[in-house]
């Protein structure tokens, strides 16, 4: 077992990601070789530093931004599905139905990237239930949020 081989496996050794035998072999090499044990110490220190990096807390608007993006897509899809169902029932023709579906789906995809507010009237979505933690953020009768950083797309949600 030479130093090059050992040094290429030091990180894996540090993370206990080697087989038991290999782990043992490297440990005994490190006890005997100063160069490799210096390299090992510096890598151990690097890992230690990384582990000390604290977690960052997001601003409150991060959650609302994530939700808004999904809610917007959800409302669009629901509205479009409703429209598609109506059209299918009305025309009953498969090829025409498929063509319309393709057009509508394409439109829906494109609409996702839009930032314009939604004007679609949608039935009361059932995910606005008190048991859902997110509804606390989105329910209109929850106490008004005074956080000025909240994105304005919350205002664009249909009134329930």
């Amino acid at each position, binding site marked *: 077992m030479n130093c090059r081989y050992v040094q*290429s*496996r*030091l*990180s*894996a050794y540090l*993370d206990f*990601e080697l087989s038991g035998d290999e782990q043992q072999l490297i440990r005994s090499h490190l006890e005997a070789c100063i160069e490799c044990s210096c390299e090992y*110490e*510096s*890598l*151990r*220190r*690097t*890992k230690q*530093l*990384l*582990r*000390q*990096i*604290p*977690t*960052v*807390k*997001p*601003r409150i*608007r*991060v*959650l609302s*931004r*994530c*939700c808004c*993006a*999904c809610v917007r*897509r*959800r409302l669009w899809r*629901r509205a479009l*599905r409703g429209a598609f*169902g109506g059209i*299918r*029932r009305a025309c009953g023709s498969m090829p025409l139905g498929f063509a319309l579906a393709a057009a509508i789906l394409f439109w829906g995809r494109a609409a*996702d990237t839009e930032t314009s507010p939604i004007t679609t009237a949608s039935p009361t*979505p*059932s*995910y606005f239930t008190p048991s*859902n*933690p*997110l509804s606390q953020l989105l329910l209109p009768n929850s106490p008004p949020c005074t956080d*000025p*950083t909240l994105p304005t797309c919350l205002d664009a949600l249909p009134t329930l």
Partner: protein
Amino acid sequence: METAMTHTAVAQSMDDRLQREFDELVYRHYQQAYNLAYRLTGNAADAEDLVQEAFLRAYRFFDRYDRSMPFMNWFSRILTNLYIDEYRRRGRLRTVSIDEVYSGEDGEEGTTMDLPDTAPNPLERALSNEYLHAIQEGLQHLSPEFRIAVILADLEGYSYEEIAEITKTSIGTVRSRIHRGRKQLRDQIKKRHPNLFERGDLK
């Protein structure tokens, strides 16, 4: 006609169930997801965009999510893929120094970027902001693949096997990325703060 309507109703109730499940997952994991995004991008504005984009993509493909995999593993794959795409698209993501004056898009000009509470417990105060900055900057110097591997291993605590699953590579690749990433990072930090590697500091 009746079958079409029942079909729509069934699809809707299933959607509702999935949506509720998804909402709860967002609520439970958005902080961890943001932390990962922040460490990858190195600044709050890009991290917020990345995390939002990743949740939207996860939402779109949620019906393909294999429940045998923990959500964060699946989500980390989406987030890191998006990050790499974005990185390649933009050439190199702009990195904003945390000391720089932050001019937010909503007109909060002149304020310094609000640093999240980085020291929740006294033990973590051991690393001063200066050192933290050096480490984050060192991470920013790694190539995205190395950075992702190192962050997933040392900050998020994933095993090599999980990282291989998340990044869709072999364990051998993960092993070499982590090793080379750590070595490059060590050299970067050592250049600016050799005292962090002095003998007295080691224990």
